[in-house]
């Protein structure tokens, strides 16, 4: 399937739950309401026409103070899906609220989501409901805060950690 057909299939199945669908330089994106994120992902994986069997990337964006996005939700979790069988791709975006930054975990759909979601938790402080082991992935446990948030002060220093035991 080509990009427009994938978006059309999602819109046909989910209707208004797909908040927005657009294409930019050949990449097709669907923005999904926060509540239905996992449901859409599951459909993408299991639908016989879509068959997105591979989660290429899972990351997040902090839109804090971004010109033109002041009134939208602060975060966005981004899924890049690829189908090995069909050789097609799609990008799913799920907006996330600043006050309750929680998204349903995709570990049950693609096992690789485990580390991706730990990284997003580490860097952006977005929690993934249902994740089996949500610990920091890159930073050390003693680290305070989430460094890729736009309000993390760029030259903030944290105390050096000494040798363990």
């Amino acid at each position, binding site marked *: 399937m080509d990009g427009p057909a994938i978006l059309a299939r999602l819109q046909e199945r989910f209707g208004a739950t797909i908040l927005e669908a657009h294409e930019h330089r050949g990449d097709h994106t669907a923005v999904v309401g926060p509540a239905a994120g996992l449901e859409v992902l599951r459909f993408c994986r299991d639908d016989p026409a879509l068959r997105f069997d591979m989660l290429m990337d899972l990351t997040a964006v902090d839109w804090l103070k971004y010109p033109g996005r002041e009134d939208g939700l602060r975060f966005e979790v981004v899924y890049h899906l690829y189908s090995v069988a069909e050789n097609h791709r799609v990008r799913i975006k799920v907006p996330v609220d600043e006050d309750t930054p929680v998204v349903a975990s995709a570990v049950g759909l693609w096992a690789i989501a485990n580390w991706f979601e730990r990284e997003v938790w580490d860097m952006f402080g977005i929690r993934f409901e249902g994740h089996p082991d949500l610990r920091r992935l890159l*930073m*050390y446990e003693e680290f305070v805060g989430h*460094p890729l948030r736009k309000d993390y002060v*760029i030259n903030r220093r944290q105390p*050096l*950690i000494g*040798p*363990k035991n």
Partner: protein
Amino acid sequence: MSVGQFFTSKVDDAIGWARKFSIFTYPFVTACCGMEYMATACSHYDIDRFGAGLPRFSPRQADVLFVVGTVNHKMAPVLKRIYDQMTEPKWVVAFGQCTCTGAFYDNYAVVQGIDTIVPVDIYIPGCPPRPETVLDGLMKLQDKIAAEKQRA
């Protein structure tokens, strides 16, 4: 100068001369500076001329800790432990800009100069330093070793 003073200063000189030409390095290589370290260590630049040709990959057998490349906060305890495991006498060389000051990694992850963790004897600047710079630093370290009051 008494005979005794003359004798001890000459012994110091002899030990210093021996030590400066038997530098066993521990290459703590974490990043791209490692390529430049390898270039220096191989035949074109031949640091064996300075008696530093034998890297030891056990800190207990090494005299000089070469910290080559960016050290981040997660790595810092490891570096400290390696340094603590080395036996006296020991020296530390900060190889490259990242180890000297943190360089352009002015961010949440990178240690802003390894001298915040371990004492440093020689700073070799450069991003990465050219092999000539490294050899210059090594020779400065040799001078420092030779001039030290030897802790025999």
